[in-house]
């Protein structure tokens, strides 16, 4: 079965979820990945959206983090302050999915501005829940399209702390959670070096060369001692993802999360 790079990325992210994970789900690709996981190998995974929906089981992918579908299929829905206080800060979420406009080699993220804060070239949406998701979730998965303008040696603005500008700041601050443990792109999978916390390429997707990865990364990318090839999407995985997107398209008139 043929598949797109986007499908590979979504499925690779989905696979990283465990059956007993409790995920804080963002919109778009993370939402697709989490729901694919739930509909394949991890039926017990608990999905939580920052709008307050707890243990939700949407039949289609939401366009926003607060679509009615989320509340209708949730175990219960709490207020937003309760979500951030009792559930996120309370340490009950095992995985947070994040993305951004820029990521660096230590998993720090920028979703605030391109250029200077006071005079930005591009004003981005801002932090949203990301700052505290990165601090409070047990581990953080980053999912982003691979592009040299997004994979940068130095962020224009640190919206969200990964392992810190030199890879050591998170630990020094005494933050007890693991931080970014995975970075999935449409080309490859990064995992942090256990010593330095630098993201190393751990696996490349089928048909992708190390050179392509290098060319798409704005920093001088390093590879793990043994680089695996990502297992290609199984027919079952692709089917589940495509059916989810087709249901979503019928419901919204848009794919919502390719």
């Amino acid at each position: 079965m043929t598949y797109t790079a986007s499908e590979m990325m979504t499925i690779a992210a989905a696979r990283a979820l465990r059956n007993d994970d409790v995920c804080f789900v963002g919109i778009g690709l993370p939402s697709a990945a989490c729901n694919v996981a739930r509909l394949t190998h991890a039926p017990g995974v608990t999905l939580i959206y920052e709008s307050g929906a707890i243990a939700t089981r949407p039949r289609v992918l939401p366009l926003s983090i607060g679509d009615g579908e989320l509340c209708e299929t949730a175990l219960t829905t709490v207020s937003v302050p309760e979500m951030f206080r009792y559930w996120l800060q309370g340490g009950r979420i095992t995985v947070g999915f994040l993305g951004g406009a820029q990521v660096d080699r230590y998993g720090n993220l920028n979703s605030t501005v391109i250029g200077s804060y006071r005079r930005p070239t591009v004003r981005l949406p801002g932090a949203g829940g990301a700052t505290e998701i990165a601090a409070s979730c047990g581990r953080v998965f980053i999912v982003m399209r691979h592009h040299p303008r997004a994979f940068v040696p130095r962020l224009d603005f640190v919206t969200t702390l990964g392992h810190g500008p030199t890879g050591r700041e998170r630990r020094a601050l005494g933050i007890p959670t693991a931080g970014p443990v995975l970075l999935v792109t449409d080309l490859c999978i990064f995992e942090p070096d256990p010593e330095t916390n630098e993201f190393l390429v751990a696996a490349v997707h089928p048909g992708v060369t190390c050179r392509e990865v290098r060319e798409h990364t704005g920093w001088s990318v390093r590879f793990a001692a043994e680089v695996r090839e990502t297992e290609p999407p199984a027919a079952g995985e692709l089917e589940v993802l495509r059916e989810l997107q087709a249901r979503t398209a019928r419901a919204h008139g848009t794919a919502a999360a390719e």
Partner: protein
Amino acid sequence: MGSFRKLSEAIASLVHDGDSVALEGFTHLIPFAAGHEIIRQRRRGLTLIRMTPDLLYDQMIGAGCARKLVFSWGGNPGVGSLHRFRDAVEKQWPAPLELEEHSHAAMANAYTAGAAGMPCAIFRGYQGVDLPSVNSNIRFLACPFTGESLASVPALRPDVAVIHAQKADRQGNVLLEGIVGVQKEAVLAARRSLVTVEEVVDDFGPRSPNAVILPSWVLTAVVLAPGGARPSYAQGYYARDNSFYVAWDAIAKDRAGFQAWIDEHVLGRAELPA
């Protein structure tokens, strides 16, 4: 005591030039009808407060109502940029827009502190990031028991909170349910409050004993405004018009297109019939 009014009268008496105003709603129950009336009444110099300024604030900023924005995420959910917000920040059109920028956790805690009559909130956050260096309303203090450094933000106390809800009863009590966001906190934190509702019922009838209800005596005004949350949604009444959220991207992309839309769909219209 919340009293029933016409929308235009309620906005005229509650929202003044220069006020700080929180029109809240977390994707669900966004008070579009009330926001459009604020645009029609050409309020100026407002400090707009909201966790997720979406299309409504994009419209209010583009229409020139705002002087300042207090927020934590300014995008079109699932779609992309808010072009009017970006134009104001990047090019100062139609006017410069001062920003007080937070994270969601900070805003949620700040509303909670406002509702609870506190001067500030504390939480665990903002560690190792750049927002504290561009926002002097983010400070740190030490836990008096463990010494741990905790983030603190001032309580949000808007002059006016505006929300949309499902139902009011004849006494002016208001019930909301589903994704309730920070609306209760915004109303309790504000000096004045306005709630638009889908319908007015004699009695709420059988319900959860723990239903989210705002008693009439914490509200300033209640307005019947069916459909008042469109193109967002009201659980139990109508669904989110996702296609409009997608279409907004093109409408708001350039100034002329935006102006034409506002002229036709907001300024050129009277308030929704009650």
